[in-house]
């Protein structure tokens, strides 16, 4: 009995050794690949990991002339300032809400648009539409915000003129001055600017779906809607989930430019994001430590969010990024 156990242990050890040898041989045979990856690792280290040493600023009262080594350490003082400031929490809320709105609208519109484009039979029209729809992606927010504020202007603004002409309102609405509208304006501006661009990847995924599936659906008596629902959407499901996980990592970044450019005193309570808070109370005041602290906080929250979503989707669907 005892001997059997021993033998088993020996055998296991031998297998392990063989395994290790095999692994080593594999490494050796892929030597050139390892060499090729070294520059990438150096770059990743330099640009993604080395800057993290700057996080030390978050625990200091950092002054540029003193550097990391001589600045005084203040522990969690900067984080305390963040957590105790009601403006920070308000900006935190704004960031989350606008991000979630952007995420939902971004996904729904991009997927919807991709589905519609996919159904178009005329190739020429499809191409023109697709090109026209992703062109706004290349405009900077400065230009887009200028357009938006002209369109929403009460002074000969397109939207107000249209609504007045239709008789829906009897006097121009100050769209950019009402707190209730701001988040929606941001969400729809994002949709307008990014919908076409974001749909490209879905259109690509759709083109990879096997046409035989559509044919068999047709044979089974499915109409267009059935085809969309039972074939196209499930076909791009992996793409949707991967993009969702990646985008959730960005949820603490609701954007900066649009809120900065369209935000005015009247809507300040709903327009300011964490990035604007950092600019106002960190960079402009020369308080780099505070800026670092809130950047760190954002990164930590983002990592947690990604890990959680990844886990959930992995459990549900076996579709995960890592």
């Amino acid at each position: 009995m005892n001997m059997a156990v021993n033998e088993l242990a020996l055998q296991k050890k031998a297998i392990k050794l063989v395994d290790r040898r095999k692994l080593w041989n594999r490494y050796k045979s892929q030597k050139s690949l390892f060499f090729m990856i070294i520059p990438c690792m150096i770059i990743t280290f330099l640009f993604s990991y080395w800057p993290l040493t700057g996080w030390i600023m978050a625990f200091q009262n950092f002054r540029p002339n003193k550097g990391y080594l001589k600045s005084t350490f203040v522990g969690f003082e900067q984080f305390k300032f963040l957590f105790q400031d009601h403006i920070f929490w308000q900006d935190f809320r704004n960031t989350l809400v606008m991000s979630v709105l952007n995420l939902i609208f971004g996904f729904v519109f991009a997927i919807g648009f991709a589905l519609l484009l996919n159904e178009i039979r005329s190739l020429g029209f499809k191409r023109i539409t697709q090109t026209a729809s992703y062109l706004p992606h290349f405009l900077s927010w400065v230009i887009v915000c200028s357009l938006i504020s002209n369109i929403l202007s009460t002074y000969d603004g397109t939207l107000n003129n249209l609504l007045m002409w239709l008789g829906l309102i009897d006097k121009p609405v100050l769209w950019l001055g009402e707190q209730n509208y701001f988040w929606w304006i941001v969400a729809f501006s994002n949709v307008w600017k990014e919908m076409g661009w974001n749909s490209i990847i879905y259109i690509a995924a759709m083109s990879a779906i096997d046409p035989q599936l559509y044919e068999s659906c047709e044979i089974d008596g499915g109409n267009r809607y059935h085809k969309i629902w039972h074939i196209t959407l499930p076909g791009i499901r992996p793409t949707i989930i991967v993009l969702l996980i990646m985008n959730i990592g960005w949820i603490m970044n609701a954007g900066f430019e649009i809120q900065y450019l369209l935000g005015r005193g009247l809507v300040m309570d709903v327009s300011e994001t964490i990035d604007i808070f950092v600019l106002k109370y960190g960079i402009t005041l020369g308080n780099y430590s505070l800026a670092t602290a809130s950047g760190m906080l954002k990164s930590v929250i983002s990592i947690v969010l990604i890990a959680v979503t990844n886990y959930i989707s992995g459990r549900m669907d076996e579709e995960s990024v890592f």
Partner: protein
Amino acid sequence: MKMLRLVLAALLTVSMIFSVAACGGATQTPADSTAAASSAAATVEAASTAPAVEKDAETGLTPMADRSPVTFTLFIRDPGQAPSKDNPVLKKITELTGVTIDYQFLVGDLNEKIGVLLAGGDYPDIMFGADAKKFLDAGALIPVEDYINKYPNLKAHYAPFMKSMIAGFDGQHAYTVENYNAVPNKPAPIFEDGGVGFFMQKAVIQDAGNKIPKTLDEYFKMIEDYKAKYPTIDGAKTIGFEILCDGWRDFCLRNPAQHLMGAGNDGDVYVDPNTLVASLYQITDSAKAYYKKLNDEYHKGIIEAETFTENYDQYLARLSSGAVLGMFDQGWNFGNATNALKSAGKFERTYVAVPIANPGVKDNYIDPPSGTISGTGGLTVSTNCKNPDRLFAFWDWLLNREVQDYLQWGVEGKDWTKVGTVDKVLTPERREIMRDNAKKRDQTGDTLWQYTPKMQGLYDDGAPCGPGDSADEYLASQSEFDQKFLKDMNIQFPAQILSTPTQRPAYYPVWSFPLEDGSPAKVATNKIADTCRKYYPQMILADPSKYDALWDKFVKEIATDNPNGFLDEVNKQIKQRMDAAK
């Protein structure tokens, strides 16, 4: 159609940004080499023909002894464009001195740029107006007092200010070379209010029988009357009063109350003229009454709600249309609109500052030439500057009267002619050049003059230092409409509509005080300004019955912004400055 124009404008902006960026990147090396070549040529010529005292034939200027080529980089805190490398005046200066200035105007956000400069330690040789306190804290600046005292022109020019310059930061060394406000000689008369004020269209004043409003009630009454009489101007709907609220330019919204109380522009505080103690004007009864008045005017339709959401470009577009009757602003902030109105020939739609103050209070808008400086503004020299001696020698040379005349006025006969015994006027051709910003930049020495130590005002013999200081030139350059307007108003210059300026105390102005980065005082100013920019528009748009409640809420919120942390620091610095000036 409007859309199309917008898109075109957008495209044009984009292409311009690209071309500017491209120019900035590409021109550096050829410039250096041409400068080097031309000055090398000059050196050879000088060496072969005569000693260094030989005067330049074209300009009559004496070259510097050391003309070996040297280039200084100069960072400027504002966006702008560097002069063309073919600029004849700058080429001549380089030929005579060996010095080339590499102008680096701001691209993007100033604080961001400063942050990048500080983080990288890659400072330009000279910086203009770039938050000297931050660079000083980073150990990036060299003390300048010894260099200034070494050169006779600089020494004489800055002697009256040296005390303030040393008191500016740490009380031990001077770090800034003030180029704009250091005027040791007699100042020129003030022609126009280029600074802060309530502005009104000249047409409104004319229409009311050349009446000048003195109080808010009179001011808005005139605007109301004019708007009722002319509901549209050139086809556009007449706008009574504009309040710019875009970003940091929202001083148009936040600052007026201090001026109604009879103060100059101290920024975020009101300083009692007798006790010199600072307090917040934002929460005074004057402020309450002012925003209540705006609330009334909003409900009367004089103010459009749009004004609270429009951006700076839209604001300028409105003013340029000629349909805006009045606004509170600072002259330089809407200079582009004024130029647009002038070039469209709508001189009656340009603006003039009027003396609005609380009843019984004397207006105090115009800053007199103070004879004092803050000691914190101007040019700073960084530790990266390899040859500060050459730089200060160059600045010293520039301060020669002949050089100053050449930079500002140009060459006699070609650019200007003499009037009377000492005064000068520009030739019509040169005046055209001075009116066109691009031509002024590329054909005159203006850029160099702006960002170096300079002479302003009047020389001891009464001669104006530059066209901007000359009464004859001011009058000669006015349009027919403006000449008649001044005659009808029975004044010589528009600034005479406002009260004669009174001397400001030595600390003035508070907005120039350096506040330490991240200090409670600095956080407090940010918060106070934010509270104001949030509440004031709400109050103006509010239902009149809810105004008082909103005001009380506002005052309470200001109290939570740590106003005393800010005021204590300001009061401390006022005292320091007053003591230093004794």
